[in-house]
């Protein structure tokens, strides 16, 4: 056990997701021994991060502007919205280059054990986006686990009656998996093999 500032830093780093005590120690000692520019740059970014980086008012993904790069891009197809759980899923799907529509980030999935119901997710915002009739298809790309499936079922039931086609990406993705860790080819296949779970206009 170190003491003072170094140990404080190790403790703080250890609270981060995916960082165990050993990893925290390695990072802290590495920073201690590195070129002074490294911690300086890191500290500057940490300080401004929350002020400068926000969430896109349209889709909810991480963005420095009021609207993200994708929502601002006129070349993107406005007739398709791909619904994901987190911003990191947007990045995963973008990497596959298989999708040219826009996104909608829910901010999680329906998870009763963690007390997350539909009301805590950005579903109202999604419904608002469907009002002008430009969107033809909503592609649900929540994680292929139990909570993601439940969320998908919920969305299909509530969006279908609004007149849009609702489809679910194919589960070439392993059940219980996480979209973030799927490779580009798998994501591409899951998107192109999506199945319609609620046909638009039939309610």
């Amino acid at each position, binding site marked *: 056990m170190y003491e003072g500032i170094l140990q404080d830093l190790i403790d703080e780093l250890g609270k981060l997701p995916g960082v165990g005590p050993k990893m925290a120690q390695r990072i802290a000692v590495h920073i201690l021994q590195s070129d002074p520019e490294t911690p300086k740059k890191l500290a500057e970014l940490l300080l401004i991060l929350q002020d400068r980086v926000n969430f896109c008012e349209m889709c909810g993904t991480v963005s420095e502007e009021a609207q993200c790069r994708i929502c601002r891009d006129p070349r993107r197809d406005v007739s398709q919205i791909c619904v994901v759980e987190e911003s990191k899923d947007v990045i995963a799907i973008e990497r596959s280059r298989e999708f040219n529509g826009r996104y909608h980030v829910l901010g999680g999935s*329906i998870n*009763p*054990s963690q007390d997350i*119901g*539909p009301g805590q997710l950005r579903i109202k915002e999604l419904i608002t986006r469907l009002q002008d009739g430009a969107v033809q298809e909503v592609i649900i790309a929540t994680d292929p686990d*139990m909570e993601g499936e*439940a969320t998908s*079922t*919920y969305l299909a039931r509530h969006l279908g009656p609004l007149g849009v086609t609702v489809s679910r990406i194919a589960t070439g993705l392993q059940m*219980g998996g996480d979209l973030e860790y799927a490779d580009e080819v798998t994501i591409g296949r899951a998107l192109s093999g999506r199945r319609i779970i609620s046909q638009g206009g039939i309610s």
Partner: protein
Amino acid sequence: MYVSGLSLLRFRSYDYVNIKLVPGINVFIGTNGQGKTNLVEALNYCASFSSHRVSSDQPLVKQDEINAAVQVVVEQESRTITLDVEITPGKANKAKQNGSPLPKARELLGILLSVTFAPEDLMLVKGDPSERRKFMDDSITQLIPSYAGVRADFEKCLKQRNALLKSAYGKTNADVMHTLDVWDVQLAKTGAAVMYHRLKLVENMQGLVSDAYKNVSDDQHPLEISYVSNLEIPEGELSIALIESTMLQALAAKRNSELDRGVTLVGPHRDELQLMLRNLPVRGYASHGESWSCALALKLSLYELLKRSSRGGDPVLILDDVFAELDEIRRRKLVDLVKNNEQTIVTAAVAQDVPVELEGALFNVVDGTVTKVE
């Protein structure tokens, strides 16, 4: 098949132990608490990801340690397969096959097949319905490894749905009802798959259990097993879709009582494997001897099913401290089974407990140290 090597790291009482086993009979002698049962428990774990002694993983890890590891070398006809399992309580297991990490630990299931006979088996007959559900689920997992995923999905779904019912208590607004609707869909989907596999298992076991019971007891009355469900499935060709739609209807009908009580009342978690002798339930009516015969009959029928479906030879038989519990007739029946099996691992407190016919490699287990007697 047979196991040629077994290593435990931070498992139960062991820091580290490595044992070389032989085909045929392997006998481990040690008084209680010396660690002989821990050895077969580890082996069993690699076959089913479940212990025959405890229902959680925590006790498997040596005190003050974070994780435990088990390595088993399985010899199947002409191939050697090394299985590694890392057990970290509260986290998903990690597994390797021949040194390569598997994306899902449960892909390891189905390679090592084993059937354990132990004093705990009596609970299969005398214990709660949950014991018999565990027996069915563990059996299916060995027969159809993908069932491990089906079972995990159902349990997760049940947990989520119960959490929702609890939090919904007293506030039955539309939002809650709609959320419950989608969890009904998930529960029916996963629960139907669980039920379907259990019904099929019981169907396949019925004849075998009845034969095995006649064989191990002098009783001329047949032992009858049946799957008793809280769900009334309509007559006709059994299918997952049929169970699913029946379960959805039952969930809708029971919704109000579920909301009142805050738990899921419909599903395979409330079903039972019923054992009947002379038209009476074995649990509560059978004598001690009859109960043992029933327990053995269940395990023997599992052995038979595994043997029939196995592509890698006979399942490994594990007789964990069981001879001291049995009378002469039932001992004889187990000995007959062992004589023709590819590999059997026997544990006993003292050498006198092991029937003389079971001669093979002999190991002493004293205070967590295993020594082969040459």
